[in-house]
């Protein structure tokens, strides 16, 4: 069973179309990154998946309809919408009590153990904690829940580098196993590059690109071309070209590596470069239509 299955998901706010027939299928045990420009529909899509907003189209999350069964679904789904949604007046001990009281799958001792590794005091209020500590607290609460699907929407927004790095390390080392599914959106693309198993790009309410990270590695190659070979490289049909320190970097989709190797240095492109290439190409094609 797929953890998430969306077909023709549509959502509009007045005249603005946020989701324009979005199709998405996420298998169990994957870590999917949803990347897109601002206003592309990422948060709307996640809100639909979490049962926070009504939508048109077919959507099943862990086999349930999120809009009509949100409270049941939340037994198996956790989400961190972004930092700082924990109420500022709540004490750390009260947050533990509350989640333990209402959530059947919350393991309080696990949350306590995770908190013991931080400097968070049990009788502090959330408003007294730093932004990084609030995120640590939220992550401790969420990781102590034995959920099947974890949804993270810009989870590290506004955090400093140390906390950001720690966030994903904790998530991978102490939480993720092959039976859980994680969906994450972020603008800090480089940080999650090595974490993901799958990748989709979303633009203007639609999925414009989707593939597994293994496929990214086998399909796409970036060549830093030696100046004398630029013309030859261009003739092989790159999907994108950019300049780095005065040298041309060309991105190829499914090109023959043996023919590219003599032209310059080969490497797997970063998600950010792939994103710029794919979204740019998409927009050019759309403008041409």
């Amino acid at each position: 069973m797929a953890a998430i299955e969306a077909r023709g998901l549509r959502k509009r706010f007045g005249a603005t179309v946020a989701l324009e027939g979005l199709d998405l299928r996420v298998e169990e045990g994957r870590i999917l990154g949803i990347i897109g420009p601002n206003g592309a529909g990422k948060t709307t899509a996640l809100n639909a998946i979490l049962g926070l907003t009504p939508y048109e189209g077919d959507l099943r999350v862990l086999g349930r309809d999120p809009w009509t069964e949100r409270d049941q679904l939340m037994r198996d789904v956790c989400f961190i919408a972004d930092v700082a949604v924990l109420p500022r007046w709540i004490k750390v001990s009260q947050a533990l009590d509350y989640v333990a009281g209402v959530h059947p799958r919350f393991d309080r001792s696990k949350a306590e153990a995770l908190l013991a590794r931080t400097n968070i005091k049990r009788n502090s209020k959330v408003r007294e904690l730093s932004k990084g500590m609030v995120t640590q607290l939220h992550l401790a609460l969420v990781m102590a829940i034995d959920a099947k699907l974890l949804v993270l929407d810009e989870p590290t927004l506004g955090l400093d580098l140390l906390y950001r790095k720690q966030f994903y390390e904790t998530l991978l080392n102490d939480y993720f196993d092959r039976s859980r599914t994680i969906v994450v959106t972020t603008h800090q693309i480089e940080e999650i590059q090595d974490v993901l198993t799958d990748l989709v790009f979303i633009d203007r309410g639609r999925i414009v690109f989707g593939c597994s990270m293994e496929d990214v590695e086998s399909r796409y190659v970036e060549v830093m071309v030696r100046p004398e070979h630029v013309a030859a490289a261009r003739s092989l049909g790159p999907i994108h070209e950019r300049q780095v320190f005065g040298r041309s970097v060309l991105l190829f989709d499914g090109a023959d590596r043996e023919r590219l190797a003599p032209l310059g240095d080969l490497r797997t492109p970063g998600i950010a470069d792939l994103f710029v290439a794919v979204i740019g190409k998409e927009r050019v094609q759309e403008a041409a239509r």
Partner: protein
Amino acid sequence: MSTPSNVAAFPVDPQPVAPPLSEPRPLYWLVRRELWENRSIYLAPLVLTAVFMFGFTIGTVTRPQRLASASGTAVMPWSVLPAMLIAAAFMVGAFYCLDALQSERRDRSILFWKSLPVSDRDTVLSKASIPLLVLPAIVFTITVIVQILMLLLSSAVVLATGSSAAALWAKLPLFRMTIGLVYSLIAVALWHAPVYAWLLLVSGWARRVVVLWAVLPLLAVAAFERMAFGTKYVIAFLGYRITGWWQSGFTFPNKDRISIDPLTHLTPGRYLSTPGLWLGLVCAAVFLAAAVRLRRRQEAF
């Protein structure tokens, strides 16, 4: 090394099951959550009672002759206390409801609450239970305890002046007053249920200045009616919504001599047969259902 004894001591469960999980009690924790966030629910009545008790102590010690008075003035403070607390509970409950469904959207914590397996219906019901159940229970508990303290203090003062406290005890039907208190608390809570439900609904809808959205449209309608038709039905209706429980639930045939036995004033039959009570409860149910629907759709702002 094989350790068969250990195996015997810790037999493997033939059918491994999920670790035992405590049965969740969302309504209980939802109400506790409200008390954590809104401490005025119990602090306001407690502070008011402390001030009252301080004044009562001074009055009793400095003017003990008041307790020997033959008229009702001797036992008047015993009914002032619950009346004061019921009025305070109405104000606390109204301000609580105005804030209850707005603050979680204002500070975006609604996204955290909604990430837990708690339905919107339970959440709204837990918030409605604060003015309808929790505040009356607080008023009841404080009143009963403080009335007993007042009686003990008065008796000690009377005994110290060399008189007998028997007259005071005879004049003070504490048990019958407690029955009257329970009746009053139920009557006022049911009567005000649509008021609280309306405030909750507006609090779940308005982005800002909830109190203005809750009150000004009603005043505007009343002003329009007065100007256009010269009548006062709307304003009379609003007043009745606040005070009708008193008019229909109690009777005071002889206004000069209020009997200290509260049970002679109760008119439960008339209260229960008042259409305003039942129409109000229907409105309360409709408002709460609308508030549940609204919370399902509302996002943080």
